[in-house]
């Protein structure tokens, strides 16, 4: 009898430690609606940006992140006129400077920036005249968090970072940079990689994430292949949505995951009503051929719109190749970055 009670208690304990998640698998071949969008170019009064990877807008401020910045990674503009105000996030080896930039996120009047090569999150705040941002805080990430390549703010005191170990999918990290817990698994059907090459699998499944605290939806899109994952952190449901290009294709070489398929998604945003994701869909073979011929077409020509449950809703075909997006559903406007042109910001009206 005592043994039975002990077993029951153990089972109860195990059940309490496990997050119950309802999992759903979807696949799509096309979208119910397709619409072509034409861009209007936002002229900047400066030519600072080399590879505009991300754009974040809040109120009358817009920040453009340059993935390959030469002096600074971030540039502050007045919005909507895109009048240049200042640059920050200086490249360099000193403690105040950055070795790399992966992403930026607004948090109230502060801005967080992730430096993967330093394994550090930096918080910037506005100066008194609100025309420049100054570094106010640095959070060194726990050594257990392997190569943080994206992040979102879960709440004021917690970050979510994609897991790069291959064991899980997402890491919860506190304001001191300490790993709190992990969630999910890579939804791969590649049994061999799951068994023998988890780090390479994690590299191939490198995903961009976004989280909307108002509806509790976190979306992750793969940079290679065509997979969207939707985690509803409020009701603990989880949906995997796989497109025609399937999961990321890769070859394991020297322990690394070497891409062999296509470039997939390049940015994602969860709004109050939908999930917007930029999709490229070009094979690495084509990219290499273009590079040999001196053709530079980097970025995606499509924005896919999914419901908050991962169902395909709409496909926008763009007249530019874009990378990062900032969607304003109320205004019906998508701001996007174009790494191929001297004028790096374009605007699409979709209503």
């Amino acid at each position: 009898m005592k043994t039975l009670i002990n077993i029951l208690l153990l089972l109860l304990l195990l059940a309490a430690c496990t997050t119950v998640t309802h999992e759903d698998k979807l696949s799509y071949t096309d979208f119910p609606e397709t619409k072509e969008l034409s861009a209007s170019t936002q002229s900047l009064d400066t030519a600072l940006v080399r590879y505009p990877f991300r754009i974040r807008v809040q109120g009358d401020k817009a920040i453009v992140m340059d993935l390959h910045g030469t002096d600074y990674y971030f540039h502050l503009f007045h919005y909507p006129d895109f009048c240049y105000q200042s640059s920050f996030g200086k490249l360099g080896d000193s403690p105040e400077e950055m070795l790399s930039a992966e992403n930026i996120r607004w948090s109230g009047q502060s801005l967080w920036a992730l430096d993967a090569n330093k394994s550090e999150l930096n918080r910037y705040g506005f100066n008194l005249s609100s025309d420049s941002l100054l570094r106010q805080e640095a959070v060194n990430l726990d050594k257990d968090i392997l190569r943080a390549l994206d992040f979102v703010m879960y709440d004021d005191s917690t970050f979510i970072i994609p897991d790069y170990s291959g064991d899980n999918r997402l890491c919860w990290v506190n304001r001191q940079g300490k790993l709190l817990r992990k969630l999910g698994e890579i939804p791969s059907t590649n049994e061999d990689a799951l068994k023998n090459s988890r780090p390479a699998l994690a590299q191939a499944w490198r995903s961009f994430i976004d989280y909307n605290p108002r509806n509790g939806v976190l979306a992750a899109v793969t940079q290679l292949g065509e997979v969207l994952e939707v985690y509803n952190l409020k009701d603990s449901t989880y949906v995997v949505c796989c497109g025609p290009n399937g999961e990321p294709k890769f070859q394991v070489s020297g322990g690394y995951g070497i891409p062999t398929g296509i470039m997939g998604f390049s940015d994602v945003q969860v709004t109050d009503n939908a999930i917007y994701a930029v999709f490229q869909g070009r094979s690495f073979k084509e990219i290499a051929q273009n590079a040999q011929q001196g053709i530079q077409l980097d970025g995606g020509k499509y924005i896919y719109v999914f419901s908050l449950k991962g169902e395909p809703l709409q496909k926008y075909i763009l007249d530019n190749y874009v990378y990062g997006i900032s969607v304003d559903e109320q205004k019906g406007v998508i701001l996007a970055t174009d790494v191929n042109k001297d004028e790096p910001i374009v605007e699409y009206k979709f209503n």
Partner: protein
Amino acid sequence: MRKKILFASLFLVTIATVTFYSHSRKNDLSNLMLENIEALASRESGSMTYCFGSGSVDCPVTHVKVEIVRYGS
């Protein structure tokens, strides 16, 4: 004779300069790719991992954002 050699040298330098500038724009990306080429012997086999160009893929070797990652011997 000296003048002829000097004239011929100047002519060749001018032609080389003009040729270089007319092709430099076209070859920007190729040059960039060559400049950015990185290689490292793999840990487990004799193959090498190469990262090319300037893009958004995280090179697993150098941790620099590149356009293409490849492997070969």
